[in-house]
């Protein structure tokens, strides 16, 4: 972030949310990382006067936010779309309790699944939980809209959902700094049992209040600034919100548009009036036909998903093709090329474990994190991956289904952050209900996939200050796991022995594979002594290639080239280590039977 004028800054949507939260007087912010939401809390943690934290999961994050709100301060909670599934339980009842201090929940959807295991439209949660949802179109709209969200939250006694998508969160544009404001609510302990204690008797009363609140919000939506009609020419009228609004403006700059800054509840009168002024009403929205269904339920005819795809991200080209096919230009054809999927870093500790798993005849019940890349060739050592924490329960379920047949054949793998998120309850179940599946905790000391955030096991907090670290061995023992082994994943042969032994056991066991992520600041600073290939000794056996380390490349040879290099004629190639990329983990050295991989002299 750099100043480009006195109060104009160039910022991403996520940076703009952090700035606006600070300006709106947020005092407590919690959440769990998840693309594309992560940078909100990371940025907010750099502002003075705001307490920020990484919670172990989104449910806890929302509960922390709700607690802060009960105490009378403004609170922000952040998560990605699937995080809202985890937080859905408190969400639906927080809708009943309402708030004291303003409470805003940011949920970042990822249409197209750039970095997610599914595609969800969080707007459905606003409908289902009976909560208002605001939606900016780009970073410049964030400031005013987020402040409005806090004001609405306090005025109407409701948590407010604030939805972004990848193309709002990770888009940069010019943002205007605003005034710093404060909540009129006075912090302190106030006992309000009728509102805070959701027993059936109280909840039935609050249910009525929720209905009244939504009716008020609907009324307010008719006149609020964030819902606006942009006059234009032509017979078509567009109803749209979020980033889709920008695609409509790009393709049809002169059209009539009803832009919704609040996608739930909807301003029915406004929509009806707009519809009556156009010959053809078209709803342009990403993912589900959310606006469309509710507009049709009003008895208003419109186009929507009959023209616009309901899967993946929209973009101007898709809007153009769907609504104005004649204007599509002829494009150059794509050239078929080898794909370039992501890969674990050179020297990643996870690689060692997945190499071993690829050699064992086991079903690997996987989980979500950098280690999910262990699914890709050449390791190809993950057989299922569903949602965070699922690895443990799935392994137990398979073990129970197959009984004795499953012995020694089912392994679950989970990262340290994911284990803290929702893996522990799965392990408790495995111990309690007794299955012999093996759990490997990949403890790389950090939440790596989303960009190295601290977690309860890593020993520091969101600001990088020292914090209590959960002792994973003690934790596993405390829930009743008798055998907990700690291994160094870079020691391929040592690990294999421990894993083979653990698979023979008749009860639940845990192996903790512990070595830091190479992208940790201390690892980046450390001097690594790289390995190199003694080319004369390489026989082209490809053993090291099967690790898939990006620092090692296979160099094919023709018979003539092989001879010219002094190899046997039939040697198909040789392996070469890029010493600049090598992080000196030594995994490949253990695989070379010909001592062709050697550590360089220090």
């Amino acid at each position: 972030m750099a100043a480009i004028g006195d109060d104009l800054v160039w910022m991403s949507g996520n940076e703009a949310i952090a700035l606006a939260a600070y300006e709106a007087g947020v005092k407590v912010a919690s959440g769990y990382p998840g693309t594309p939401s992560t940078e909100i809390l990371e940025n907010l943690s750099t502002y003075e006067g705001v307490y920020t934290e990484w919670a172990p999961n989104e449910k806890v994050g929302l509960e922390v936010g709700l607690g802060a709100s009960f105490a009378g301060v403004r609170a922000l909670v952040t998560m990605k779309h699937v995080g809202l599934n985890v937080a859905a339980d408190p969400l639906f009842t927080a809708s009943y309790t309402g708030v004291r201090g303003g409470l805003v929940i940011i949920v970042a959807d990822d249409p197209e699944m750039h970095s997610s295991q599914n595609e969800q439209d969080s707007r459905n949660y606003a409908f289902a939980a009976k909560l208002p949802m605001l939606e900016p179109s780009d970073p410049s709209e964030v400031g005013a809209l987020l402040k409005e969200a806090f004001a609405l939250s306090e005025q109407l006694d409701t948590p407010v959902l604030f939805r972004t998508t990848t193309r709002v969160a990770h888009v940069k544009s010019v943002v205007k700094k605003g005034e710093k404001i404060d909540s009129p609510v006075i912090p302190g302990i106030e006992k309000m049992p009728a509102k805070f204690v959701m027993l059936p008797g109280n909840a039935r009363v609050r249910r009525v209040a929720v209905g009244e609140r939504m009716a008020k919000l609907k009324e307010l939506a008719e006149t609020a600034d964030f819902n606006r009609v942009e006059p234009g020419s032509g017979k078509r009228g567009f109803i749209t919100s979020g980033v889709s609004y920008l695609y409509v403006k790009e393709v049809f700059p002169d059209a009539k548009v009803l832009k919704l800054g609040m996608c739930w509840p909807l301003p029915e009168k406004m929509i009806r009036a707009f519809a009556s002024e156009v010959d053809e009403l078209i709803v342009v929205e990403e993912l589900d036909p959310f606006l469309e269904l509710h507009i049709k339920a009003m008895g208003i005819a419109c186009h929507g998903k009959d023209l616009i795809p309901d899967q993946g991200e929209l973009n101007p080209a898709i809007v153009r093709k769907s609504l104005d096919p004649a204007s599509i230009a002829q494009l150059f054809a794509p050239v078929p090329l080898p794909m370039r999927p992501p890969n674990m870093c050179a020297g990643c500790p996870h690689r060692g474990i997945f190499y071993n798993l690829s050699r064992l005849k086991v079903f690997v019940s996987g989980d979500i994190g950098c280690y999910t890349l262990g699914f890709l060739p050449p390791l190809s050592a993950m057989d299922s991956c569903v949602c965070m924490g699922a690895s443990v329960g799935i392994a137990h379920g398979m073990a129970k289904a197959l009984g004795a047949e499953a012995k020694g054949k089912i392994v679950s793998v989970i990262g340290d952050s994911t284990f803290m998120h929702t893996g522990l309850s799965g392990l408790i179940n495995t111990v309690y209900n007794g299955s012999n599946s093996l759990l490997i905790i990949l403890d790389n000391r950090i939440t790596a996939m989303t960009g190295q955030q601290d977690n309860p096991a890593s020993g520091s907090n969101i600001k990088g200050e020292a914090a209590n670290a959960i002792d994973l061995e003690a934790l596993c023992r405390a829930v009743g796991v008798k055998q907990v082994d700690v291994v160094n994943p870079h020691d391929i042969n040592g690990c294999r022995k421990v894993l083979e032994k653990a698979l023979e056991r008749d009860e639940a066991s845990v192996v903790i594979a512990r070595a830091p992520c190479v992208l940790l600041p201390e690892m980046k600073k450390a001097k690594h002594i790289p390995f190199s290939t003694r080319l004369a000794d390489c026989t082209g056996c490809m053993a090291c290639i099967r690790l898939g380390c990006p620092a090692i490349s296979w160099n094919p040879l023709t018979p003539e080239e092989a001879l010219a290099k002094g190899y046997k004629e039939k040697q198909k190639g040789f392996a070469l280590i890029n010493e600049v990329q090598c992080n000196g983990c030594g995994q490949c050295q253990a695989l070379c039977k010909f001592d062709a991989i050697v550590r360089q002299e220090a």
Partner: protein
Amino acid sequence: MGAQGNILFSGVGGQGILLASEIMAYALLAAGYDVKKSEVHGMAQRGGSVTAQLRYGDKVYSPLIEPGRADIQMAFEMMEAVRYLPYLHKDSTVIVNTQKILPPSVATGKATYPEDVLDHITALGIKVVMVDAFDLAREVGEVRTANVVMVGAISAFLPMASSVYEEIIAARVPKKFKDVNLKAFAAGRKVSQA
């Protein structure tokens, strides 16, 4: 002003595309344009194929460039120059770093790196500027400035003066790397002006 344009950045996660696209964004902002940039973070950054999209003009709505409408492509790797061919039009300019980074299938011997891969672009009559950014960066004394060499190369195709970029670069890199980055910028600019 009055001009508008779309710049597509493509390359491999970890090549410094985000910094290069930031410098370009600030330079265009300094020239008074409205600017929007779209990036993808997360999983793809682990060595995968990555892009950033930069749009500028009097008023920019969409943060995404439409296929067929990228005016300049700044490719940090040769194959990644060709992957986004449908984004180009016949008057596009492609500035490409002549580096080859092997994708996993090639590095593990399962596929081969396409030979003369840039021919796919030149065959269509599209202008290609080749920049040996890695070598030039090494010559100026810091291999990590390859992305700033690329910024220098693209700068020759935009109306802003060198001084605009130089100021931005000086403000964005650590003091002790300022001079080497400015040299990298000049080296890249020279390639495009030759």
